[in-house]
């Protein structure tokens, strides 16, 4: 079946961060999710948020090595977006009854739980980095996120040599780990 093959290719592309694959998925599904949100008390900006979060859920799923989706990408994204939007409505007290749209949906509870956990972890790291202050934040981001080498970083941040930068990085890292683990263990994630 050609369709199924294409879908699998797309998911593989997504897992490998292939820009054309992501763009294709985006193109094929955005308007559908936007219609869902707009028809249910949402704004265009909400639609963008929800759709992108749904894509992150799918991305997390396929990057953990599981390309096997037991439904079409479309159905999956729709179901996840729907759940996310219901949750958002509940949080903002805008929830009235069930969503107006009743297209085909699949069960995504497990994936949602997994996503929520990862989302919390992401938030913990984000907060820990944010409270770190400069230059620590930029220094650690340069090393761990942008994966640049120490010589480069030393030159950029105005340290006289890589060893000095390393010492500074170490101090920053210890602070980050402390705040991170304090929240990480407390949140029991």
């Amino acid at each position, binding site marked *: 079946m050609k369709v199924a093959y294409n879908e699998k290719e797309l998911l593989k592309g997504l897992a490998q961060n292939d*820009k054309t694959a992501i763009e294709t998925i985006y193109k094929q599904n955005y308007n559908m999710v936007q219609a869902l949100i707009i*028809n249910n008390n949402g704004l*265009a900006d909400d639609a963008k948020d929800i759709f992108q979060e749904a894509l992150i859920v799918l991305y997390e799923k396929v990057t953990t090595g599981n390309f096997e989706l037991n439904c079409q990408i479309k159905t999956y994204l729709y179901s996840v977006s729907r759940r996310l939007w219901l949750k958002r409505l509940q949080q903002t007290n805008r929830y009235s009854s069930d969503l*107006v749209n009743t297209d085909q949906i699949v069960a995504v509870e497990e994936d949602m739980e997994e996503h929520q956990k990862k989302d919390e972890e*992401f938030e913990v*790291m984000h907060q820990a980095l944010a409270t770190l202050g400069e230059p620590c934040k930029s220094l650690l*981001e340069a090393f761990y*996120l942008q994966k640049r080498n120490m010589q480069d970083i030393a030159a950029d941040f105005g340290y006289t040599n890589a060893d000095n930068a390393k010492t500074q990085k170490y101090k920053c890292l210890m602070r980050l*780990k402390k705040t991170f683990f304090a929240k990480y263990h407390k949140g029991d994630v």
Partner: protein
Amino acid sequence: MQDNKDLMMLDSVERYIKGEMNPDERLFFENLRKTNSEIDQMVVEHTLFLRQVNRYAVRKDFAANLNDIHHKLENAGTITTAANQHTGKLVFLWKKYKRVAGIAASIAGITAVGLSLLFNSVAPHPKDPQVKELVSKIEVLDQKTKNLDQKIDHVDNKATAAANSNASGIDINARYNGTGFLIDGKGLMITNAHVVKRSVNIYVENNKGEKFKAIVLKQDPARDVAIIKIVDDRFKPVASLPYGIRKTASDIAEPIFTLAFPSDKMVYGEGYLSAKTGFNGDTLSFQISVPANPGNSGGPVFNRNGEVIGILSAKEVGAEGAVFAVQSKYIFQALDSLRKNQLYEKVKVSQKSTLNGLDQTVQVKKIEDYIFMVKGD
């Protein structure tokens, strides 16, 4: 000393986890790990930490990627941002009861008209005091505008004094300078009207020192907004701009930043929105608290999402830190009047910023290529 030892230990742990050790080193470290539980614990903990950092990095990248794609598709018209529709239910109700509502409305209308007719014929006619009040209000406004103009002139004069930089490459002896920023990929730019009003020839210069000829398309001296256009073959159009222009007003205390050319170098300024109105309560502009110098005029004022919320325009003499900016909605008004010209009927300006959530350094890096020095003779 202890610090140094810890540093080396953690460094080794990290290299071990990342697989950067050579086989001998690795063997030695593994033995150490087996015999020393403290080191083993360190490896376990750091592995977990690095995994979290990695996940964080991957997700952040992916989210940024998605934003880029969204912006690109939106610009290409592949996905269309729908107009907001509030509730499906409401629309349904409206359709259902449209006729009833219509009848009710017309009854109400007829009653109202009848009542007011009755009222008018009975009540005495006062001698238009309200009109007079309006006239005096207009006079006050006039005075205010004049005051503002004086301030602007003052900034102008200062700018003239500062602007004696040479204009090699393009044959203009620049006497006025300010800042301007692109609002579309094809070379349309916004600056202050007072920056260009006395000049016959103008050119713009970017951060890299490249100069381009430009012309003034539209000037609105009352609002101090001017639209200029780069008309130079060497200027390469860009597909889309990273920032958008905000149509609605911003709130007090919102953090803002500015990029402008008070000298030959681009200067970054940081502050906050301090009042929703400008000099003497002028409602066209707002007040910000940010360091500004002559030459900053015409520069964009960004909020933290990377949206342009205003155009830096004037500084109050004698009051430190009181700087005024024209509200960005007047950019749209100026554009509306520009669209009356057939050549520019289809000019489009994005309200969407792709810089949301990025670090300030990254935001500035993405923006800086689109901010120009504006010079005129």
